[in-house]
């Protein structure tokens, strides 16, 4: 009892563990981290094994036969670079479009008064609760009649729409956090709304934009069910569709070496982006709206 009473301030959430506690924390954390990281690291290792070894039980000797054959084979026979480029184009397009539209809307909702703005904002937020998985049939018919099915631009528009509610929410919060004096001073000096945004507010909203782009990119880079529904031409496949084609579309045996290498190609950008930009990601998580 007294030991608890004399603890230093800031001890609250258990910062003072004592030596044993700290060792336990490190051991437990490391073991848990291994459970989450090992399968991913193992996949990377597997992708450098020849296909003949991938389809056999793993053994220690396998690691002396590492090769890039799966990657070169994928590039030559499976055109994986084209599929990666499709995924990249869709993800970057979605990210940029979402950023532009969400920034405009966030600015509008946060800094301007107009009739019904609260209602319209609530409407945009509520659409976050409508799962796109349940709208595949009407979306398919609608996009088909607009010429947007089997079309990467159509796919990017679809992804952008379902990223917008989150993006608008984040950007509106971002604008609300900027001191009013800045835009008021700009307005007094005669700056237009666009001018204020570009010259005065831009540096302050960049973190919000980074959050929006990051979420949109990660969402669309390997989104599966929408791409499966809206894309039919082989040449327009995104990475998950190309991998699915390797799984089910191939005649005879699945080439697991290629499949693993393709999955690693799909994984790497996510890992790099997240590890590099995670403060923006977490900023989005704590902003109050989360995509499941």
């Amino acid at each position: 009892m007294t030991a608890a009473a004399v603890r230093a301030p800031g001890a609250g959430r258990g910062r003072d563990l004592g030596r044993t506690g700290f060792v336990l924390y490190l051991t437990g954390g490391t073991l848990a981290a291994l459970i989450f990281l090992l399968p991913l690291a193992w996949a990377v290792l597997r992708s450098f094994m020849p296909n003949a070894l991938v389809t056999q039980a793993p053994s220690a000797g396998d690691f002396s036969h590492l090769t890039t054959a799966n990657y070169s084979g994928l590039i030559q026979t499976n055109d994986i670079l084209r599929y990666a480029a499709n995924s990249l184009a869709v993800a970057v397009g979605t990210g940029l479009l979402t950023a532009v539209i969400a920034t405009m809307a966030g600015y509008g909702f946060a800094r301007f008064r107009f009739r019904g703005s609260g209602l319209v904002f609530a409407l945009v937020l509520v659409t976050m609760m409508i799962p796109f998985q349940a709208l595949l049939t009407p979306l398919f018919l609608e996009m088909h009649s607009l010429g947007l099915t089997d079309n990467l631009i159509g796919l990017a528009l679809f992804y952008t729409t379902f990223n917008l509610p989150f993006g608008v929410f984040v950007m509106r919060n971002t604008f609300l956090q900027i001191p009013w004096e800045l835009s008021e001073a700009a307005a007094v000096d005669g700056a237009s709304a666009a001018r204020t945004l570009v010259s005065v507010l831009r540096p302050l909203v960049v973190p919000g934009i980074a959050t929006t782009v990051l979420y949109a990119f990660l969402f669309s880079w390997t989104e599966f069910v929408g791409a499966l529904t809206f894309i039919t031409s082989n040449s327009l496949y995104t990475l998950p569709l190309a991998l699915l084609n390797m799984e089910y579309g191939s005649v005879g045996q699945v080439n697991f070496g290629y499949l693993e290498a393709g999955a690693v190609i799909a994984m790497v950008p996510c890992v790099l982006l997240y590890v590099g930009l995670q403060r923006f990601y977490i900023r989005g998580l704590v902003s109050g709206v989360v995509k499941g």
Partner: protein
Amino acid sequence: MTPPGNVLSRPRAARGGVRTGRRLGSWGTRVLGRGLGARRSRTGMLLVTPAVAMVGLFVLFPLGFAVYISLTDWPLIGPYHFIGGQNYSLLVHDPQFIHSVLFTLLYTAIVTGPILLVGYGMAVLVRSGRFGSVFFRTAFFLPFIVGLATESFMALLELQPDSGAADYVLSKIGLAHANTAWTVDYGLALTAICVFVIWFASGLTMMLLMAGMQGIPVELYEAAEVDGASWWQKEWRVTLPLLRRNIALALIISVIGSFLAFNQFYILTEGGPGTSTQPVVMWIYEEAFVQYHLGYATAGAITLVVVIGIISAVQFFLLRDSDSGRSRGDRRPVRRPVRRPVRGTRR
């Protein structure tokens, strides 16, 4: 960064926005006259138009259209007829649809608890900002970032009989035969996919709970320590009650995610063996784009939208009105007229 107290304040934020907007409006009118106020109003509307148009075109219109399609016998090609509620009455008696609903519920029931428990445990581990906690947090969250589709392809390889890592490891410790074919047996496939999804999704729950835990004032723990509370007592009496809303949010996000499961089943089992591991979204997809029963599939989809809508409504209800007595000062300011001075101090 937004204070963690805002995590659950969607409705409040919505109202705050209206009020904030009004401030500049009145300021604009006062200082610069009515002409500019009207112009600002028009600018605001123009700014939000693209977002509203996109949402209207690709969410609200399809939603209304879906209701209409679900009342017809819409095929992919050819004429359709209005058949009223017939699709819905067929749905209730369709053993395949019923099975997919029950299977989705079973899957949700299995994974929800473990995801919450594992996520909570990991949040406890990383919340303190101690040495190594950022690394741990990153590691725990990485599976969620990489995505279920990509990881399902990796899992497909590791679940193969004889060559997969799952069989290799489990046979070494005597839990399975080295030639267990995980993806072609109902029970094995469900087990493997549940373990896989718990591994994938716990990181998100961790993040949501961690944000909430870090928002709890340290003073509360200090006070508990002065009173001689043990670690368990602090967790049980301080953390859990204050974390109720975060837990509710994490649970609802997790349940909705499970209801919408598709990738892992489509890639790993393709709904098989037979259609035994077919969740609802896969039933909709197959019925619409393989069987071409668009009207019928859409009736199933509308059912799903309604169920998820109800869960979301429960979310709003829980997060707005539960445990108001325990709230911290910034939790429910909407109904308090003293809000304005608080904002004034921020200027």
